[in-house]
């Protein structure tokens, strides 16, 4: 190395030696056709984001990633129909916003991201298999009795909830992360029975305005419905035999998520969370869920608005968090959901509540953005 001293000062490390110590392994090259299709994918997503944005002039310039589906964080969401496949890139906005504090500032201390609060940590009650079948019987029975009017074509399903999801804050230098959750905030969704139209109002997640945004499926060739992308109309076609249902769910979700059992549980959870479910199907889905290995009863849980209940739950072996579907202890109707970290993982301590919802209203309304009853609050 014949470098002049000043160059040495600027380059204290011998680059050739570094390369020699551990050369770049392999010569991976992405084939050109693959590169092209990834490019097209990107351009399509961008175009869709732009057309959505153009459709609704807003004061805020960046609503390109509109709807944040209430999918649980750090988990595959299979909620295409629910949130509208229109929201193609929305998942990228990430319910789990990773707020990186690199860049301008130093990587020292970061407060909570805007609109977030430190995640609460709860005492974790262990689940048990005991009482699972009788509990599920009651829940299924309640689901069968709980009949909502079936939507007619042109009408909309309306679901109102209170939600809070994880945001983590990560120190880019140390890799240390801290768990914050969004402040509990209202969420309102309208969905057409065929799954093609929808509207979301959820300003509290920072990505929709007060007016909300469209969930219309504006793809030219929408994907066919499936258990991961159900419309209400599609749900009506499903079998109400729990065993067949479960088999179908396993088949359709094969290879997805964190293992087949967890993915089946997640899929059912996604189905029941924000939907106006045909009564017999809801009943069958709960019975199906009870057959999934690892599903337990948790005697006491609490939903996002503080209602206590009994829960059907499963711990995701990979991420170490347990999702609990919470039901009223007397009527056994669905209240909401809580996701608790069961072991320290990815910087999140055991007992941390990383997702919390409470469904406060399900109804059928005549038009999009119509609030049931006389409520003026939107």
């Amino acid at each position: 190395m014949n470098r002049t001293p000043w160059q040495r000062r600027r380059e204290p490390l011998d680059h050739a030696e570094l390369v020699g110590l551990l050369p770049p392994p392999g010569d991976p090259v992405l084939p050109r056709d693959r590169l092209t299709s990834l490019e097209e994918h990107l351009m399509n997503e961008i175009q869709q984001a732009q057309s959505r944005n153009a459709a609704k002039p807003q004061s805020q310039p960046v609503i390109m990633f509109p709807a944040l589906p209430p999918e649980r964080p750090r988990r595959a969401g299979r909620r295409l129909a629910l949130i509208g496949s229109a929201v193609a890139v929305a998942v990228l906005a990430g319910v789990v916003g990773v707020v990186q504090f690199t860049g301008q500032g130093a990587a020292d201390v970061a407060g909570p991201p805007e609109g977030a609060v430190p995640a609460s940590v709860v005492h974790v009650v262990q689940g048990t298999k005991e009482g699972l079948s009788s509990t599920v019987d009651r829940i299924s029975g309640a689901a069968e009795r709980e009949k909502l009017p079936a939507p007619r074509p042109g009408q909309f399903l309306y679901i109102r909830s209170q939600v809070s999801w994880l945001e983590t804050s990560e120190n880019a230098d140390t890799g240390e992360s801290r768990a914050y959750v969004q402040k509990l905030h209202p969420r309102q969704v309208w969905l057409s029975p065929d799954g093609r139209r929808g509207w979301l109002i959820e300003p509290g997640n920072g990505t929709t305005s007060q007016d909300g945004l469209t969930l219309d499926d504006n793809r030219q060739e929408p994907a066919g419905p499936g258990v991961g992308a159900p419309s209400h109309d599609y749900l009506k076609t499903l079998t109400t035999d729990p065993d067949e249902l479960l088999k179908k769910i396993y088949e359709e979700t094969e290879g997805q998520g964190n293992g087949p059992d967890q993915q089946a549980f997640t899929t059912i959870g996604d189905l029941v969370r924000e939907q106006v479910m045909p009564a017999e199907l809801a009943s069958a889905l709960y019975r199906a869920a009870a057959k999934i290995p690892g599903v337990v009863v948790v005697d006491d849980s609490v939903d996002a608005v503080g209602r206590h209940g009994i829960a059907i739950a499963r711990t995701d072996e990979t991420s170490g968090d347990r999702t609990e579907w919470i039901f009223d202890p007397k009527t056994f109707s669905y209240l909401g959901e809580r996701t608790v970290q069961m072991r320290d993982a990815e910087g999140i301590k055991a007992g941390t509540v990383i997702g919390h919802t409470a469904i406060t209203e399900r109804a059928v309304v005549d038009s999009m953005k119509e609030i049931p009853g006389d409520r003026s609050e939107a």
Partner: protein
Amino acid sequence: MHARIRAGDPEAFRELFRDHAQLVYRHAVRTTGDWAAAEDIVSLTFLEAWRLREKLRDEGDSPRPWLMGIAVNVLRNTGRAVRRHERALARMPLRDVLPDFADELVGRITDSEELAAAKTAMAQLRKGEREVFALCVWSGLGYAEAAEALGVPVGTVRSRLSRARTRLRKLTDGELRRRRKKTEPVWAGGQVQGGRVDAARSNEERTR
């Protein structure tokens, strides 16, 4: 370019993709050892870039450090990101590249041994050191670029590289050294370190 990216000009993103997708891909394959995951990381990186476009600052000649910073962040949270974004990935075009398959497969078999050995060696390093090493030594970013990508001072980049060197030197002979002889000549187009690398360089030239 910076202004066009910030303004959300789709053609600017096409350019950004064409100039850097291969670089992101190579970086991702080498750091993960997983070809399929690397494709996802490419897509995730550019979609994230679109989302974060307004945060691009007018520093430097090229958006490369900014983009690689995003890639690093995606890689850093891969487990989490993949689970979180599985749906977006599900919309990615399926692989249907049968004609190239044989070629590609041969390339992969050749590479896999090196990738495995590199992974073992990298495991000796701390996370921050690994990131700096991969950016500077494997992906050819200058120290200043790596510093910008990682959001750390240049001094930190140097000290991490220095520690990485110390640790790597301690590695015993064996697989790694044997492999080194084989691959060293490949990296003839070594990088100029310390100053700003010709940042706008397209990666096209490095495709085989």
